[in-house]
């Protein structure tokens, strides 16, 4: 669904606001993509890992002799061989006082603390040979009892996974604003929920992978890395291996999906680099699907208790949230696995106008794979907790859930404001989004149909979920964390001699289409056609320093940097054109790649001609004229913690009460991500996120045995929705431009997922309401639905 776009004067151009498909699509669809596993370097070797089969076990001995004798094997390496080459990982966030984590070695040596942790690496001529040899490595294990869930981790009667920490609590943080106890005492209605979220994986189409290439000749390191942030990894490799930063280059080629998972720091990837330094050869490691399930950063694994107080006249007066997240066996360096819990408690309740708020989050260590960044991080948890309570409260007061929300939202007249969880709301648009959404989904009709179906014994549910998306985290967030994470991004623009533009951006793209959006901004800002802008990205050696892709920052930060670079290049071009034509630059403009005279409207010079003179006929210019046709600009808002986007989603479901199967009949989104650069790609971001959100609530689950063993590790038994499992998804927009930037864009990468998870949770519970049943355990498998119905009947 398209929307009209109000463009700022002087910025009107054909590219921004246009539905342009991703620029790399044709290349990828022709099979001409260049992913890590497509790349072969001379003298390159392949690495396969031996991993702990146990959640927790002592390593009594490792015998690698037989493996060393195998055909094609160049080396068999254990932690004893390479751990000393690299500073240990330490996933502690300095901006979270009290956060503790143990030091993590490259590979386990005496003890493995999760199933999948690496213990040895075989480097061979081919991956198959490396796997052959890996099977022959003989490890004598002594299995130890494992801490397998949050309850066990919190119980101080259980041993600490890392004795240096003396218990399994990583982080314990509380918020206490206002008089919550009094608010609950005075409340007319108190509603409560106790929710469980199982673990998920990101499931990128292309698994993680890298080629580490240490050059023994000059001591330089090049890493071709399926990673969202080449600059982050340049700093990590430089720091951990003691290689001067200018000798480290990280290149991100085509990447088949990141979803935040490829932002994390993996000890096993550092082990690949260590192996390359050790052997002086390029070494490739690409995780296979089973390895991806075991060791790609996991997400969720939370238990949340929450309650909400409401007055007799229907005002939400207070909220209380208690979250526990089981984050795995170590802290996640650079990105910190306390983030899910922190987001969950700082954003819960934020759309609603109340002041009394109390919350606590604890992150605890368990003998499981590390939790890390994943699309939405803790924001879906905040959305679900809040919106489920809001629906319960509306039901308790016999109010329509839409009217109840409208009554309690923080409206435009209250802005700007700071929520008791600490969110500064400035340009949010809850009422506007909800009005658009209810019209789009024909809310009234769905409710009346629901009544008709209920009378026939058919369970249909309607869910509304309001959400906030914290996009483009800035310096106030990451700066004090101690991690060298750049929240700025940069753009270099060069006028090519033929009059086209080459753009080098520090933003990376894993399939979102951000680079297409950046090219659109550049095209309109300079005044050239979109097709005349070339894009280079993903190389830490050539672009201005920057972050890359995370927290939906590409357009908000990278787009603004491109706008600033475009402005500068345009001015330089006009200055040169002015010198050539002896016309004041103020009277000139650029449109469609032509310099035009604003007074006559005539095209007076092509950019090709400007460039020809600028590059090859400087002799015709005044002696002091300074030709600058390559420019760089970086952008970051020093004091801005994030750009807060928002929206409301609706979901319509039907439940088969005999089988527990849930069918999503419809999904709608009214989204406000500020100014929209490319409506096609924004809509597809929202739709893709919604698909992932529906998957999270209905399908996705890492299935663990009671002893802590992961039981599913293939795409046959870890379910994600396929096209046939998804409804038609309709997307509309409210555009409230970000006030602090010229471009006005906010992020949109996570909105679809956050809102969808909330809406599906609410809709399914709404459908079950006539039976008096509640479902509080994600994913909503048929068994959990049937159990919920059975509990209500008994």
């Amino acid at each position: 669904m398209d929307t009209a776009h109000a463009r700022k004067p002087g910025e009107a151009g054909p590219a921004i606001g246009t539905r342009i498909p991703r620029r790399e699509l044709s290349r990828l669809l022709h099979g001409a993509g260049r992913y890590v596993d497509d790349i072969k370097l001379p003298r390159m070797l392949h690495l396969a890992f031996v991993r702990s089969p146990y959640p927790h076990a002592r390593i009594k001995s490792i015998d690698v002799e037989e493996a060393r004798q195998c055909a094609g094997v160049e080396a068999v390496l254990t932690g004893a061989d390479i751990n000393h080459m690299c500073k240990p990982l330490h996933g502690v966030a300095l901006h979270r006082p009290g956060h503790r984590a143990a030091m993590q070695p490259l590979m386990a040596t005496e003890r493995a603390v999760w199933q999948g942790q690496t213990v040895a690496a075989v480097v061979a001529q081919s991956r198959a040979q490396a796997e052959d040899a890996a099977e022959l490595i003989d490890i004598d294990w002594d299995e130890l009892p494992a801490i397998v869930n949050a309850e066990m981790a919190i119980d101080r009667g259980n041993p600490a996974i890392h004795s240096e920490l003396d218990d399994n609590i990583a982080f314990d943080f509380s918020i206490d604003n206002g008089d919550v106890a009094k608010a609950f005492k005075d409340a007319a209605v108190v509603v409560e929920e106790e929710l469980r979220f199982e673990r998920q994986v990101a499931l990128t189409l292309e698994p993680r992978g890298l080629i580490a290439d240490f050059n023994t000749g000059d001591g330089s390191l090049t890493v071709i890395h399926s990673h969202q942030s080449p600059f982050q990894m340049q700093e990590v490799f430089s720091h951990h291996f003691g290689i001067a930063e200018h000798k480290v280059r990280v290149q991100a080629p085509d990447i088949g999906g990141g979803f935040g998972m490829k932002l994390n720091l993996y000890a096993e990837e550092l082990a690949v680099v260590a192996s390359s330094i050790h052997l002086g050869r390029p070494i490739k490691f690409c995780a296979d699907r089973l390895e991806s399930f075991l060791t790609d950063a996991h997400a969720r694994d939370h238990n949340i208790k929450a309650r909400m107080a409401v007055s007799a006249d229907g005002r939400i007066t207070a909220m209380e949230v208690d979250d526990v997240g089981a984050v795995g066996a170590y802290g996640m360096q650079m990105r910190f696995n306390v983030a899910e819990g922190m987001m969950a408690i700082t954003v819960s309740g934020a759309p609603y106008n109340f002041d009394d708020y109390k919350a606590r989050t604890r992150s605890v260590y368990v003998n499981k794979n590390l939790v890390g960044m994943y699309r939405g991080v803790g924001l879906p948890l905040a959305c679900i907790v809040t919106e489920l309570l809001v629906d319960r409260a509306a039901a308790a007061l016999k109010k329509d859930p839409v009217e109840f929300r409208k009554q309690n939202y923080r409206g435009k007249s209250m802005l700007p404001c700071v929520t008791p969880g600490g969110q500064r709301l400035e340009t949010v648009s809850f009422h506007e989004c909800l009005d658009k959404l209810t019209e789009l989904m024909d809310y009234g009709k769905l409710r009346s149909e629901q009544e008709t179906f209920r009378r026939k014994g058919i369970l249909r549910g309607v869910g509304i979920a309001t959400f906030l998306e914290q996009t483009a985290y800035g310096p106030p967030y990451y700066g004090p964390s101690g991690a060298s994470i750049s929240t700025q991004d940069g753009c270099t623009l060069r006028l090519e001699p033929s009059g086209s533009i080459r753009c080098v951006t520090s933003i990376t793209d894993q399939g979102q289409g951000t680079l297409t959006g950046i090219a659109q901004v550049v095209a309109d800002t300079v005044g050239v056609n979109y097709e005349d802008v070339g894009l280079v990205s993903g190389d830490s050696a050539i672009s201005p320093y920057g972050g890359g892709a995370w927290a939906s920052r590409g357009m908000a930060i990278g787009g603004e940097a491109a706008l600033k670079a475009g402005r500068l290049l345009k001015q330089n071009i006009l200055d040169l054109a002015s010198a050539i034509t002896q016309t004041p630059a103020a009277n000139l403009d650029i449109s469609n790649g032509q310099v035009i005279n604003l007074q006559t409207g005539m095209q007076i010079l092509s950019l090709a001609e400007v460039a020809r003179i600028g590059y090859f006929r400087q002799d015709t210019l005044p002696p002091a004229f300074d030709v600058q046709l390559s420019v760089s600009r970086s952008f970051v808002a020093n004091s801005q913690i994030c750009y807060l986007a928002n929206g409301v989603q609706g979901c319509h479901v039907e439940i088969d009460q005999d089988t527990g199967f849930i069918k999503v009949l419809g999904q709608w989104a009214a989204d406000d991500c500020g100014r929209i650069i490319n409506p096609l790609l924004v809509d597809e971001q929202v739709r893709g996120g919604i698909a992932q959100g529906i998957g999270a609530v209905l399908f996705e689950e890492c299935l663990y045995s009671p002893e802590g063993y992961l039981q599913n590790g293939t795409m046959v038994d870890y379910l994600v929705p396929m096209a046939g499992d998804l409804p038609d998804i309709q997307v509309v927009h409210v555009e409230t431009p970000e006030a602090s930037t010229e471009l006005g864009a906010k992020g949109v990468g996570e909105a679809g997922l956050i809102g969808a998870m909330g809406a599906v949770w609410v809709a399914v519970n709404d459908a079950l309401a006539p039976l008096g049943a509640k479902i509080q355990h994600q994913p909503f498998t048929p068994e959990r639905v049937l159990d919920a119905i059975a509990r209500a009947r008994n």
Partner: protein
Amino acid sequence: MKASNIGYTRPRSLTQAFEILAENDAAVPLAGGQSLMVALNMRLSAPQLVVDIGELEELSQFSCVGDTVVLGALTRHRQILESELLREKVPLLPKAAAHIAHAGIRNRGTLGGSLAYADPSAELPACAVALGATIVIGSLQGTREIKAETFFKGLFETDLQAGELILGVKIPVIVASTSIAFAELARRQGDFAIAGVTAVATMAQAQIKSAQFVYFGCTDFPRPANRVAAAVMGLKSPLAAGAELDTAVGQDINPSDTAGMRGDTKRHLATVLTRRALDQLFGSEARDV
């Protein structure tokens, strides 16, 4: 995820295939490869020799002789799904094939492979038992025939001996007085069934005279559900089935707990599907699919 260094051979004739299998105790036949290739790549299986029978013409017959449909072992799931002949003569098979995985898998996966592998959630083994099919088996020693209901012996376990190959399946043509049913629950379209049932019933005056119910996805291997068959005997309407039908389901199948689903949930789902199958038996004309 690379297969071990295994041997591979592609015999040019059935006789040559039998000779190779007779000489190599550890040889494994490869037909459509939709189960074996996965097991090889995940190193769950590392046979010394894979014998690729996927191109043998002798195993590709597809015909109707008198009252019997004869399907070669290499009949692809897609052929079953799209066959006009089967739609007319054995409509249960195309009805079931619609539930088998996805197009790419149906293009390659074979009937013989599905029967030989005996996956407890597979559709075709259950249909073979319900339809009273006969499985034709060959080896260097000659051919033998065995009824489907005695062919399946346990979880991934059949009567197939070393050196033997399934040559094909003989299936009696469905007659006018026969009613069929097929119902399964899969989490997503094309997934393995978490519970399924197929039924073939002889009807007279809209009453069940005799019936064969076979479960899959919620039992170790396909076999006649005799107590369910007895419980539905003489029924004149699906609504006439009482609680004793659910009890019979519980006696005929005893699903074990699997990752993510308890056995009692599967049993419940099987009772739901049994009633849906009954609806189909009564709701459809004998030849209607």
